């Protein structure tokens, strides 16, 4: 019982319930207003009907009086009063108040209202009808101070009125009940769905990021809210996973060289020698190792900077051919040294909003990778295309090296991930991560495809300087 009261109280505090109650109040009010108008119109119509009947009676009696004088009037009243079950009331008295004819026991004490109608209870004046109803009547004073009252019992209209009021009450009660019930039902339905969202958020706040809001699939605003929340949670989970991975990778990839560094110095200290060249060699190796570590940090910082999007406001128009030419110029002899052919094909002069330095570094990283992983005698093509056929400018680097297996293409964009698990070739596993971050900073996407054989990697900029509808990842 107590639980029921508590849940009812909780329900009463919800927005849907409050809205339902407000709606109900408005609804009941308008129904009551309509019913009141119907009642007033109907009652008014009936009253005017009675008024006309009375006027006809009076006209008939007037004819009698005019034709046959008081005698005729008395007869006529007596005649009419004698009719049983009549709804009309009559009373004709002498100036002294003695009843000459009629079906009332006394002259009503009620005073006529402004429009000349006298209202009184028929039963109190011993009328022929014993119905507890009122009557409305007109009174006349005839020559010689005789007094005439002609009226009509209003029991029918009273009854009708009573029945109308009773049914109107019922209508109101049923309306209110249905409205309240419906409101509660709607409120509970909405609340249950919002409660589901709350449960999920609490679960997530407690640290479980895998929770998702259930969706009804109806596509209404709560469903859309749930969908958006889920999309947001996916994004947060992805970022958190990324962060955790980075932290773990940083711990691993920086601790290893630091450990190497430390043991190298320690060994040099243990092996005492007079030869300064030995120490010099150790120190040089130490510096080289430290430089590699610093380079890793610099790369991480660059990625973080590009990823934060803080530079997005500082983007300016860049001729895409410039960073492409710089990178090509820089790496051409390197490829040649490895017996590879690097062909640069600049087919357009597109301008994008961007950061020239970061773009140059991105293209350089891609070329560096292509040269590093393509065997001697390989062929590397660097192609820049302008916007065409609903797509934006594109920089493509294609090689005929070993390529990247399709299931690894997504993974190589992550920080510190290297296909070369033996780590035989130099590199820190951050090159593609930086390219990916630079791409996203420019609203571009990085597409890795099979060049059959080899890898074709494209930096695709959005058409018309816009952004892609679906963000990469």
């Amino acid at each position: 019982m107590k639980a029921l009261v508590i849940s009812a109280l909780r329900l009463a505090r919800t927005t849907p319930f409050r809205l339902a109650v407000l709606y109900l109040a408005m609804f009941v009010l308008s129904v009551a207003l309509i019913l009141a108008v119907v009642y007033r119109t109907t009652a008014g119509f009936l009253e005017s009907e009675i008024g006309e009947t009375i006027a006809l009676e009076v006209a008939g009696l007037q004819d009698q009086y005019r034709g046959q004088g008081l005698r005729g009037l008395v007869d006529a009243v007596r005649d009419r009063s004698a009719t049983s079950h009549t709804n009309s009331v009559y009373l004709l008295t002498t100036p002294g108040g003695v009843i000459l004819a009629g079906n009332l026991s006394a002259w009503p004490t009620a005073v006529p209202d402004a429009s000349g109608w006298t209202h009184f209870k028929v039963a109190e004046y011993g009328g022929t009808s014993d119905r507890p109803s009122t009557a409305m009547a007109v009174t006349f004073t005839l020559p010689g101070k005789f007094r005439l009252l002609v009226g009509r019992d209003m029991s029918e209209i009273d009854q009708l009125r009573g029945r109308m009021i009773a049914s109107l009450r019922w209508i109101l009660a049923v309306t209110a009940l249905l409205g309240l019930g419906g409101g509660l039902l709607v409120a509970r339905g909405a609340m249950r769905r919002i409660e589901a969202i709350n449960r999920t958020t609490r679960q997530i706040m407690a640290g479980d990021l895998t929770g998702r809001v259930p969706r009804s699939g109806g596509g209404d605003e709560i469903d859309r809210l749930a969908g958006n929340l889920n999309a947001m949670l996916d994004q947060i989970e992805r970022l958190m996973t990324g962060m955790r991975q980075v932290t773990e990778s940083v711990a691993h990839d920086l601790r290893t060289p630091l450990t190497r560094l430390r043991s190298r110095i320690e060994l040099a200290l243990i092996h005492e020698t007079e030869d300064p060249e030995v120490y010099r060699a150790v120190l040089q190796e130490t510096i080289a190792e430290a430089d590699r570590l610093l380079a890793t940090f610099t790369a991480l910082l660059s990625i973080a900077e590009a990823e934060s999007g803080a530079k997005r406001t500082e983007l300016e128009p860049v001729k895409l051919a410039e960073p492409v030419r710089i990178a090509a110029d820089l790496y051409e002899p390197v490829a040649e040294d490895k017996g590879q052919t690097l062909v640069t094909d600049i087919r357009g002069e597109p301008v994008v909003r961007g950061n020239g330095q970061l773009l140059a570094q991105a293209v350089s990283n891609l070329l560096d990778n292509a040269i590093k992983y393509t065997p001697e005698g390989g062929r590397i093509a660097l192609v820049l295309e302008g916007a065409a056929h609903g797509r934006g400018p594109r920089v493509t680097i294609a090689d005929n090296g070993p390529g990247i297996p399709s299931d690894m293409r997504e993974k190589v964009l992550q920080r510190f991930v290297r296909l070369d698990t033996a780590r035989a070739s130099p590199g820190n596993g951050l090159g593609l991560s930086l390219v990916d971050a630079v791409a996203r900073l420019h609203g571009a996407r990085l597409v890795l495809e099979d060049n059959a054989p080899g890898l074709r990697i494209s930096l695709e900029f959005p058409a018309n300087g816009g952004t892609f509808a679906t963000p990469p990842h």
Partner: protein
Amino acid sequence: MKVLVIEDDRQAASYLAKGLKEAGHVVDVANDGKEGLFLAGSEHYDVMIVDRMLPGRDGLSLVEILRATGNDTPVLFLSALGSVDDRVKGLKAGGDDYLTKPFAFSELLARIEVLVRRRSAAQPQTKLTVADLELDLLSRTVKRAGKPIELLPREFALLEFMMRNAGSVVTRTMMLENVWDYHFDPQTNVIDVHIARLRQKIDKDFSVPLIHTVRGAGYSLRAPQ
């Protein structure tokens, strides 16, 4: 030469001063912007090394004030801020070069030397000459011992940069910045490959090499002693 170091981190300042002195320079150290401004105004220096982040007055506004008062001593900014935009801001404020911490000391030495040299050889030249190597900036031709040498445009630009700084050490990052306008460290031996190409054309057929490798620092183009 005489160097003013404006650096608030005392440890870093004394390390800088020690290294510069060992390289044969005379060094004054200021630990904040006010002191730096006073020293820069009262003494003549060949070059100033200014930390970008200083307490009280930051390095950028300090250099702006110096430039506004007509002081045109070359300034090299040191900064932990390494982004392209920070660099551009530093150069806009009147700095002549920008070096991101942490840096190799050899890099700093090479850079200040080039800065001072650039200031003293301000008059425009049309021909650069080192020993028997001649580079004509107008006809864009190169000759060694009177024999014409064919160079690609980027090789020409690289050689020009080295000849302008003949006798000094030029580091790999300096070459990347000045020849390619590339402000990142590519982490691979790209520059070494380019130098190797240049050597093929400049030094291979001659008994006396002009391009020298400076271990742990970079390269130097110089006439035989």
